[in-house]
């Protein structure tokens, strides 16, 4: 050991002592109600322990006491940045339990894919925007929010709600889309790539952005898999695993798209990956628009799908049918299923154990934010306070989902 290092060691010991500080639950860069307990020596992080549960609402207990169709709106409130994806994960799980996942009409599946990919864009835009503002780049945040607004307007057009869409139903989707909606989606597909180039100019070559993110919070592919990383975070470490490609659900096998992967698995790669994923989402949306089939938007199984709202006003049988559906729901055959989709933040899985009644006996949500967040301590060790903010933003957790 040289003399110089000795002095540095001593200075560290002399000038600082170990302190534990709380970051959150009310903190501007905590992305919600995250309470991080940081054990620090000077500026250096010795241990970072997330303390979660401030937004715990007992969603799984609620689900056990609701009819299957009544639970759909609750899924909006999980990852409230991309309600459409959550809807999709849930209705697909129920459809699998019912054994009708192959019967969903093509038009419904195409609409689902379009809105789910729009939700991915909206989620990534907000993820990058909020991350940028945490790093001090307010301009990029405002630009991202501007484009996200376009997504939300599209959701409002198709479902009537901007964030809590509840658009999908078991058996299909609730509302058909008209030509005006498709035109607007095409506008979005045309506009976003130009805007992504703009963000590129603002962030990708930005020296501050690079220095704050490059080589920060790097994780190897092996560790990432072991920790249960999924979604963009896993692919940034170089694992080309995307459920849409490997075990395609819905109609994803009909579209041509790439699965971008990173190399180092650091924060900067996670950023680049989200940028690349948005472009792939646009490719999928464009293909879906080009080949949008005509036909019904829900399966023709009266037990599971109620009549259209217009049809109940002048037809007594339809009104009775609607009433019956709303008040007593439908039964699901006994058995257990697990169905997962590639959500914007990672794999969103739903496990349902049915006892043959109208309510799930057990419903378990495998939420990506929860699983991704447990790696916080591993990534933050030996970094600095300011890096923790970058690492947290790069994981892109949402607490509606993490805390359930």
């Amino acid at each position, binding site marked *: 050991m040289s003399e110089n290092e000795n002095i540095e060691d001593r200075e560290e010991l002399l000038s600082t002592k170990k302190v534990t500080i709380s970051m959150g639950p009310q903190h501007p860069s905590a992305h919600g109600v995250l309470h991080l307990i940081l054990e620090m020596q000077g500026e250096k992080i010795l241990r970072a322990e997330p303390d979660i549960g401030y937004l715990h609402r007992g969603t799984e207990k609620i689900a056990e006491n609701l009819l299957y169709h009544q639970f759909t709106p609750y899924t909006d409130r999980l990852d409230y940045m991309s309600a459409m994806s959550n809807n999709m994960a849930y209705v697909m799980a129920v459809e699998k339990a019912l054994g009708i996942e192959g019967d969903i009409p093509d038009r419904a599946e195409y609409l689902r894919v379009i809105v789910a990919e729009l939700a991915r864009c909206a989620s990534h835009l907000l993820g990058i925007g909020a991350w940028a503002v945490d790093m001090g780049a307010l301009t990029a945040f405002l630009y991202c929010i501007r484009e996200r607004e376009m997504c939300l307007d599209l959701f409002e057009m198709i479902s009537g709600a901007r964030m809590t869409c509840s658009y999908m139903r078991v058996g299909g989707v609730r509302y058909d889309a008209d030509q005006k909606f498709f035109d607007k989606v095409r506008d979005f597909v045309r506009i976003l790539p130009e805007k992504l180039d703009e963000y590129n100019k603002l962030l990708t070559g930005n020296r501050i952005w690079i220095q704050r993110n490059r080589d920060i919070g790097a994780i190897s592919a092996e560790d990432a898999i072991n920790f249960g990383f999924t979604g963009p975070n896993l692919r940034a470490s170089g694992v080309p695993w995307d459920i849409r490609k490997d075990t395609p659900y819905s109609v994803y096998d009909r579209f041509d798209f790439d699965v971008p992967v990173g190399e180092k698995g650091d924060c900067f790669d996670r950023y680049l990956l989200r940028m690349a994923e948005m472009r792939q989402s646009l490719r999928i949306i464009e293909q879906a628009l080009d080949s949008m089939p005509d036909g019904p938007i829900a399966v023709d199984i009266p037990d599971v799908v109620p009549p259209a709202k217009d049809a109940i006003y002048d037809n007594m049988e339809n009104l009775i049918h609607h009433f019956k559906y709303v008040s007593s729901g439908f039964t699901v055959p006994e058995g257990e*299923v697990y169905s997962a989709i590639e959500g914007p933040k990672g794999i969103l899985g739903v496990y349902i154990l049915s006892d043959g009644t109208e309510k799930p006996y057990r419903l378990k949500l495998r939420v990506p934010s929860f699983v991704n967040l447990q790696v916080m301590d591993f990534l933050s060790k030996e970094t600095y306070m300011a890096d923790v903010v970058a690492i947290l933003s790069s994981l892109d957790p949402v607490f509606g989902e993490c805390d359930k």
Partner: protein
Amino acid sequence: MYDISEDSHIVQLLKKVVGTAALSHTIHRGELTFEIGKDDLLDVCNAVKSDESIKLDFLHDVVGMDYLDLDDGPRMGVIYHLYSIQNAFNLRLKVRLDDGEHIPSVTGIWRAADWAEREAYDLYGIVFDGHPDLRRIYLAPDWVGYPLRKDYPLKGYKDEYNPFGEEKEDE
């Protein structure tokens, strides 16, 4: 994507690897489930993870279960959802436990099990032996009871913070 059916290659392979540890197996909606005893859990998990032709290297989730009144088996249970990134198929392992019975932790095999096991402990009271840091995760440390158990009321129990809860029966 593998076809999961009784005589498909992957199911035969899994039967061989899990071997006599399997108490039963079911295939429902294209999903394979093995029920195993808790003493065999770590051996089976290690085997399915390390076997090159199976290589279930990814743990989706650990699910705590309460089977109260659903069947005659032991009351509690733990379910593991595994996935092989290389071979693209899912497997479900199920372990049934009596109330209060402990189960070995799989955190040594998949670190992803860390918080998931804490969640099962928090909401069901299932104790995982060998877990590095088994504490409540969602609820406050001084919470009494395990809310996701079937005999825990939806409204919760009445106390100073929850005037609408149900009265607790004295034991």
